[in-house]
């Protein structure tokens, strides 16, 4: 006898969207932000929605709860929740559904929290006001739910205000609040995008557990293929307002059918695969705006397989025979991802190994940066309190050889940005040495020689913040050229045009204003500006974090190309360990102001690991649902940098401390253990013990994109 079959009523999806189109009324007409969306989510399923920004992911979620704003409306199709059509439902019933049965978690937790109300009161309100529960019972239930979302010190958190806890904790409170109602449907729009990988990993674990325990149907929106591989059972890929592919998570990653899905997979580096096999291939062009979509297939202007029919006839979402996969492409059966060849005009840098050079361009020794802070007590206000310091960078030492890239990784607040700001001279070092081209650079920028400033440039995460909004692109790039007298005045325009071309922007961008550029284009201008003075060293602070994956790949390739051509040295800060690995020859892992491990990239990503490196690697979402990844999670939260733990700063959270016969030794400074010359680990655990630890990631399949 087999398992009893599921009953008909169990097969009715919690959410069933059919042929949905949502339009926004705009000046002079309306735009259809999404079209022809069909999907269903059953109990206990987690349906990922992935795609680049502007593809209409959020619009789908908002349509469900009718949060489309004053100008948005459902133009066609139906949205059934538990078998009832929600389209056109208003008033009481919709409000009750939204409150009691459908919950939404946004990227920014503060969108759901009241800043001036105690967290405990906000949580309890859900139970006391709506469910009529007594205050004391509600208190107990809320604490239990906070514990379920792994909130440290739950009872205490109840008596705090939102701003008194970290962003990751706020997001957990929001998830706990959503779950108190035991919703049948949970909509999550990029809920971990603003969080550190370690926190993200914990939240994703939690979502997987909750889905099983509460049998909740989850719609999970993200731009991150790694995240989608980890949380979803099914995935829908959106492009330009349409769903172009829908499949189980295994199928989607094993044999993506739509050229766009295949292109996305080629854009992202994958941890665990050989570095040389993971060349990034950006998708040319960009997502068209809703009012600029081409006739025929929306993807054709960017598709490598486009034919006549694609330009004329819009493909329907159709199922691929013998699979559960749906795809919106005329020719997917004929397309074999394995035999894809990069277009000939695509420049793919980084394939030739760099020349070995011995010259050290930057050397930092015992560098320290403390920020003076004022406490809140009355004494402090009158300047009588004890002086307090944020110990942002402690005793950092490393060398960077000319022409190479040093990647710096670590959670937010670990001192990455302070370190590069000190090097570039935006901050004055508290102590220690830093030499660039043999010159002392512990002073701040105002005291530096102009020549030195010219040789040291920076690219920021958010290029907006450094661009004058009323200057054209041409003027922005010309400024450093003039300032550093790089060339005679009359040649400047030509040089700017040359830089624009090398950024693949073209001359037509010369007269554009920053607001007329997309994120990726702005970042190209930022890079062109940094390059203008022909610097020897460029510091990049999260230069691609705010960009979509296809754009990200293009920018990374561009930086690599520049490096190849000019022999520029790069320092590359990133929270993304896959990107860093792809990009860097050397990696420096920081935690709470301390360097924990430093060495050649290949060695950092393989045992022996520093316990912190191991935890970081274990948290990285890998765009491959079959990848085996060890689960090593840090306990608790990052302690305050004003009073960091003594000895090894990781000792309050270290998952490997118990390997030591006397864990108390971690309260003293660990030794720098040398794995090889140039690879060091800062930990009390002997190397032989660390070597016994298994690799974090193992991927069995070959990368078909390679």
């Amino acid at each position, binding site marked *: *006898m*087999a*398992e*009893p079959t599921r*009953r*008909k*009523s*169990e097969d*009715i999806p*919690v959410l069933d969207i059919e042929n949905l189109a949502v339009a926004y009324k705009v000046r002079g007409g309306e735009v259809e932000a999404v079209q022809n969306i069909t999907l269903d989510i059953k*109990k206990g399923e987690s349906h990922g929605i992935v795609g680049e920004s502007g593809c209409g992911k959020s619009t789908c979620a908002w349509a469900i709860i009718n949060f489309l704003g004053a100008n948005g409306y459902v133009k066609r199709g139906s949205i059934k929740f*538990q*078998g*009832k059509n929600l389209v056109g439902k208003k008033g*009481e*019933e919709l409000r*009750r559904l939204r*409150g*009691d*049965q459908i919950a939404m978690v946004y990227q920014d937790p503060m969108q759901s929290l009241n800043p001036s109300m105690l967290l405990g009161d906000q949580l309890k309100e859900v*139970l006391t*006001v*709506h*469910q*009529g*529960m007594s205050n004391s*019972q509600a208190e107990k239930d809320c604490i239990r739910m906070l514990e379920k979302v792994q909130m440290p010190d739950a009872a205490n958190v109840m008596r705090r205000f939102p701003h008194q806890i970290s962003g990751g904790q706020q997001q957990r409170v929001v998830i706990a609040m959503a779950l108190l*109602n*035991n919703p*049948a449907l949970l909509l999550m729009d990029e809920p971990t995008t603003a969080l550190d990988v370690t926190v993200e990993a914990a939240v994703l674990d939690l979502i997987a557990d909750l889905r099983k325990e*509460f*049998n*909740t*149907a989850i719609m999970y929106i993200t731009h991150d293929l790694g995240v989608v591989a980890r949380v979803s059972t099914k995935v829908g890929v959106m492009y330009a307002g349409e769903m172009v592919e829908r499949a189980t998570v295994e199928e989607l990653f094993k044999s993506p059918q739509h050229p766009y899905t295949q292109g996305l997979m080629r854009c992202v580096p994958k941890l665990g695969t050989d570095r040389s096999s993971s060349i990034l291939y950006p998708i040319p062009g960009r997502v068209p705006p809703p009012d600029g979509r081409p006739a025929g297939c929306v993807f054709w202007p960017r598709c490598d397989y486009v034919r006549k029919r694609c330009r004329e006839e819009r493909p329907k979402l159709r199922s691929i025979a013998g699979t559960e996969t749906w795809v919106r492409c005329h020719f997917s059966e004929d397309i074999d991802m394995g035999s894809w060849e990069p277009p000939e005009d695509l420049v793919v840098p980084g394939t030739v190994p760099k020349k070995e050079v011995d010259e050290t361009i930057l050397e930092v020794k015992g560098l320290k940066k403390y920020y003076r802070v004022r406490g809140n007590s009355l004494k402090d206000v009158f300047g009588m309190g004890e002086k307090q310091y944020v110990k942002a960078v402690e005793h950092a030492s490393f060398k960077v050889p000319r022409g190479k890239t040093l990647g710096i990784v670590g959670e937010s607040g670990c001192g990455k940005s302070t370190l590069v700001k000190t090097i570039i001279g935006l901050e004055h070092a508290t102590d220690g040495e830093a030499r660039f081209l043999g010159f002392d650079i512990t002073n701040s920028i105002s005291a530096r020689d102009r020549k030195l400033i010219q040789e040291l440039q920076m690219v920021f995460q958010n290029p907006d913040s450094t661009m004058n909004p009323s200057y054209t692109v041409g003027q922005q790039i010309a400024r450093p050229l003039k300032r550093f007298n790089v060339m005679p005045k009359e040649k400047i325009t030509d040089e700017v045009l040359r830089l624009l071309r090398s950024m693949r922007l073209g001359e037509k961008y010369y007269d554009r204003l920053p607001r007329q550029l997309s994120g990726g284009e702005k970042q190209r201008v930022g890079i062109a500006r940094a390059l203008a003075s022909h610097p020897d060293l460029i510091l990049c602070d999260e230069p691609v974090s705010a960009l979509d994956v296809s754009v990200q790949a293009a920018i990374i390739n561009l930086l690599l190309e520049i490096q190849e051509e000019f022999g520029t040295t790069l320092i590359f800060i990133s929270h993304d360990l896959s990107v860093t690995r792809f990009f860097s020859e050397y990696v420096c892992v920081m935690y709470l102001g301390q360097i924990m491990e430093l060495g050649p990239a290949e060695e950092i990503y393989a045992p022996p690991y520093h316990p912190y490196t191991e935890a970081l690697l274990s948290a990285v979402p890998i765009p491959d649902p079959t990848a085996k990844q060890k689960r090593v999670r840090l306990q608790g939260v990052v302690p305050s940098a004003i009073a960091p733990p003594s000895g090894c700063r990781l000792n309050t959270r270290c998952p490997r401390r118990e390997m030591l016969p006397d864990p108390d030794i971690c309260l003293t400074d660990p030794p720098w253990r040398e794995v090889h010359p140039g690879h060091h680990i800062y930990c009390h655990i002997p190397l032989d013990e660390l070597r016994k630890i298994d690799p974090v990631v193992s991927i069995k399949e070959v990368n078909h994109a390679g």
Partner: protein
Amino acid sequence: MLVKDYMSRHPFMLEEDSSIVEAQSYMSEVHVRHLPVVGDGKRLLGLITRETLMIEPGSLDSLNVWEITRYLSGMKVKKIMIKARDVITVDETAAIEDAALLMIENKIGCLPVLSGRVVVGMMTQEDLLVQLCRLLVTRRPGLRVSVSMPDKPGETKKLMACVEKQGWEIQSMGGMPDLRDDTRYSTMVKIIADVSMEDVQETINQIEGHEVRDIRETQ
């Protein structure tokens, strides 16, 4: 084995202001026979069943077709539902056998499952049958053996020890008092082993007072 582990979570529900026409079509749309009616915070207000929706044809005798339509479309769920205080419910922390007893004693087919006053699930007779099935079904081929033994402490242990000694694997086991003989107890064991039916029968019959009443292969 508690109700909360086996109930259907996130049941279909109705609002008290829905019309009975809506209720009727919703019921057939989602293939259920019972719908809890809830208010704010999913608090239980009542229950609609197939039976509550049966309208006594006699009561419509005096009306013509148009009047019937108007009469029915104006009628709200709250008017005909079984009110919360009369609905038999079970708490999510109850044992499943208690839920079964409640249904048998009250001759009802379904129980709204509550946590406090909030509806968190539904438990139907069918759910219970499904669980019974799961309890007894094997996932691998094996032998299903019914053994009759004296109804006294220590007898099950003897059977277990015997099976253990042979190195056979027990996949599942269940028992209940013999309904025809109150001195005996019937136990059903599922054995997975590379062994013939005869061998099993013979081995178990050797335990004093034990007797194989039925043995068969299962897939």
